[in-house]
């Protein structure tokens, strides 16, 4: 399994961190101590909302993962295995997917019929564990997600030496890679006035087809649902490097609100990355629970909130980063009406209502939530 390492090559910082896991085991064994990894807890209870910075920050609480504990032994073993696989990637200078990590680390344990891992569900959280423990980003670990996002607009990028003009890529746009760090993706030029991040691919297609970006001079981004890291990171880079305001357009349901909050403050699960991902100044343009009335959407294009929606909305009401008065009103309004609305529902009025009426009016009235 071990890759032939070039003697001359200097180990990267991440590689050194990964080797540190092995050092920890060796050191503990020498002192006859239980080898233990201290893994920051990735849960709401260990998250604080830094109001000044507008970011979610990971707390100091850590969980111990020890080898000589029946409940944790297997996980500990798996964690070391995954660290080994990640280190192999570093040495070979390759990137890979979560699924490939799973396959790489799966084998039968010698002397038994037990597998090291049974499903990918076991290895995925271990990678996140290592990310937070070693304070290494997933990109730095060379693990990529799927290219699940698209961008179009007056933006010129350089990817692997190829010049990509996002204004000349037709309706389809450029597929945002999972790793958009400056080493991999260079922003050559951007003349846009703002970034519009759309939750749904369908609505992004609508805007792209109608050349909304040309008329309003903006970069159109979508992540097809919960935006992947590449999309979030690209939006953040445009915001930071080109000082573009970022607007978020999502469905009017609790999941839409949460997508917005992830873009703005970071996610609970990977709060430690929010300093590189979050865009605290991002604005919520819609769909707001006030819009159906303001834009005359008929009640019958709404969808009744189910029990899960209601429970999720109540949870949001409790989050520290949703405590601003307009937000409390926004969520409560939705709960009171008992309905959620999809962006697609705007088509009820006109196929191009979103492009021609809704967004222009929103932007003109500066009708957004912070």
């Amino acid at each position, binding site marked *: 399994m071990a890759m032939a390492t070039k003697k001359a090559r200097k180990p990267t910082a991440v590689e050194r961190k990964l080797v540190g896991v092995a050092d920890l085991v*060796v050191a503990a064994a020498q002192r006859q101590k239980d080898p233990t990894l201290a893994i920051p807890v990735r849960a709401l209870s260990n998250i604080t909302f830094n109001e000044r910075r507008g970011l979610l920050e990971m707390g100091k609480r850590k969980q111990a993962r020890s080898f000589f504990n029946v409940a944790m032994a297997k996980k500990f*073993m798996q964690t070391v295995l995954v660290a080994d696989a990640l280190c192999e990637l570093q040495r070979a200078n390759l990137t890979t997917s979560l699924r490939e990590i799973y396959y790489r680390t799966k084998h039968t344990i010698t002397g038994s019929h037990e*597998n090291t891992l049974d499903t990918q569900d076991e290895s995925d959280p271990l990678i996140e564990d290592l990310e937070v423990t070693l304070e290494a980003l997933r990109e730095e670990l060379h693990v990529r997600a799927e290219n699940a996002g698209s961008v179009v607009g007056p933006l010129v990028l350089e990817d692997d030496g190829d010049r990509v003009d996002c204004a000349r890529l037709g309706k389809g746009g450029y597929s945002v890679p999972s790793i958009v760090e400056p080493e991999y993706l260079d922003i050559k030029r951007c003349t846009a006035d703002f970034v519009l991040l759309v939750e749904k691919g369908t609505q992004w297609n609508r805007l792209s087809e109608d050349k909304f970006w040309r008329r309003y001079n903006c970069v159109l981004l979508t992540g097809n649902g919960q935006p992947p890291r590449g999309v979030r990171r690209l939006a953040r880079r445009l915001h930071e490097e080109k000082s573009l305001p970022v607007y978020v357009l999502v469905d009017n349901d609790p999941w839409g609100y949460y997508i917005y909050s992830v873009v703005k403050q970071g996610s609970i699960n990977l709060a430690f990355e929010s300093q590189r991902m979050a865009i605290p100044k991002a604005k919520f343009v819609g769909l707001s629970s006030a819009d159906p009335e303001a834009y005359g959407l008929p009640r019958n294009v709404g969808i009744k909130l189910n029990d899960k929606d209601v429970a999720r909305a109540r949870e949001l009401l409790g989050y520290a980063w949703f405590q601003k008065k307009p937000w409390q009103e926004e969520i409560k309004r939705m709960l009171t009406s008992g309905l959620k609305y999809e962006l697609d529902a705007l088509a009820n009025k006109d196929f191009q209502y979103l492009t021609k009426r809704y967004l222009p009016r929103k932007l003109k009235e500066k009708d957004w939530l912070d």
Partner: protein
Amino acid sequence: MPAKPTVSAVEMGARQREISVSEFFTKNRHLLGFDNPRKALLTCVKEAVDNALDACEEAGILPDVVVRVETVANGEPAPPASQASRFRITVTDNGPGIVRQQIPRIFAKLLYGSKFHRLRMSRGQQGIGISAAGMYGQLTTGKPVRIISRTSARTPAHYFEVEIDTKKNEPLIRESKQITWERDRGTQVTMEVEGRYQKGRASVDEYVEQTIIANPHVELTYYAPDGEIKKHPRTYAELPPSPREIKPHPYGIELGMLLKMLQDTASHSVSGFLAGDFSRVSPQLAEEICKAAGLSPRARPRDVHGEAAETLYKTIQATRIMAPPTNCLSPIGERAILAGLYQHLKGDFYTAVSRPPAVYRGNPFVIEAGVAYGRGPEQGPEGRQKEAVPLAEGEAEETDHELARVIRYANRVPLLYQQSACAIYKAVLDTTWRNYGLTQSRGALPAGPMVIFVHMASVWVPFTSESKEAIAEYDEIRKEITLALRECGRRLGVFLRRRERAHSEQRRRNIFELYIDEVVDSCNRLKGGTLPVAKLREQLQRMAMKRTGGEKTDELLGRNGGGPEGLPHSIIVTPEGVEGEVPVAVPVNGTPDAEPNAERRASAESATEGHGARRRPRAASRPPRRGRAGRAGARAGRRRA
């Protein structure tokens, strides 16, 4: 205008005549269990074996029964057993034999027998079975029933060929002669019937297998039509105590029955009748009943009819009368059930429960239940082999969804049909097996490699039909079954939990040992192969040993297999040995002709010896398993089921 009647009353009257019982059953043979050829074959075997066992037990003889089922070729070459449509059934026993004069009537007259008129626990009840089987054979093949019987070595054996006159319900003797027979005593009955032989559920094979489980005192040899010979040696050398005959309990009769008894009694006064013809009615109580019913205790029973009889009946039902005596019952007993289950079913855990006697409608009864759980240690290597392929994603969830099997008995006779109509089956479904560590879907049998045994012993088992396939649901019966099952379940739960604990100890220890190599190898790779691997492994192993309690745990694990302490009437089988009330199976080397009493004494001695052996060290206490052929058969049967 009313239509002119086409048939006059006179004409109708000319057509009205008596129907003989035999004629009735000729037309309604499904009522007796001859619905289809496969079931008919089973019913014929069953009736003959039941009769043989009843006779032996009543005479105090340990039964030794030979069942032979052969295919009959009609001139052509014999077809394979599964294709054949005609079979010859021969059942031979070592019972007391039958006196010459009675033979024709017993085998060729319906509703003729010794068991109907008395309240005594026996397999047969009505005196229909064997003669109906013979009649079925006669109807389908035209062949008479052939009987050989001999009552002792000093008397000659008699050979009979009899048919039944279906109009008159009388035997027709086709042949009667003295012959020489190799047996000193016993009866042999041979029938040729149309049937179908198919293994599996509700087959003759299953009947034989289940019979020997509930009757471990029986030695049974079965020659299957496909040429297989299954010898089931006796595994419990004690004859069940002979049940006493009792008089009916007043609560158990209906008005019509009371009227008939009033007519038939030999007593001259009502009070004498009540005290003499019923159980639990003292002369004093009889007087009280008469007084309460407004009858003179001196009145002649024959004069009590109509309203007076009805008042008497109601008064009796309203009077408090002691529950009937229970010595009329002969339950199998926990030890014998255990022996039967242990010898014939593979498993890791066995337990048996006999409930105290209870009463329904004036009939005493006893419920017994047992459970055999697991696949037995012998299947271990086989199971391990299957696991040897590393599992792919999703494969691990494929668990075994085998459901438990219920085997039902009434007076030691297995009930093979109409399972879902039976009170036993319903009680099993209604028991919450989940409380005892098993999985059970709603409205289904519990899951797991398990056989649930339930036996009802009673002077009168309430069947739902003549063919005696399902026990009717009386609240009292249902309650007793439930209580017995719960007790079995409770013990099984204790066993399962204990075993689970032992396993988790084992796992605890294995986990570290398994994972150390993985961790060491990964660390070595992380360090670029520069690690002193052996040293790291040794250090980690040292820690693992310390953490799991070292050798002390080793010892503990060896011993902590989970003994049957606290689990009465149970057997636990582990790869290391067997614990519990293992029946010290004493093959009875005495000849079948030995004095029954002497035999019983001998077996009683062996029983006490067996009890003493209960706490012997495990390795030494494991007796050679007997009845290998039997268990192999049982195993095959279970698979098929």
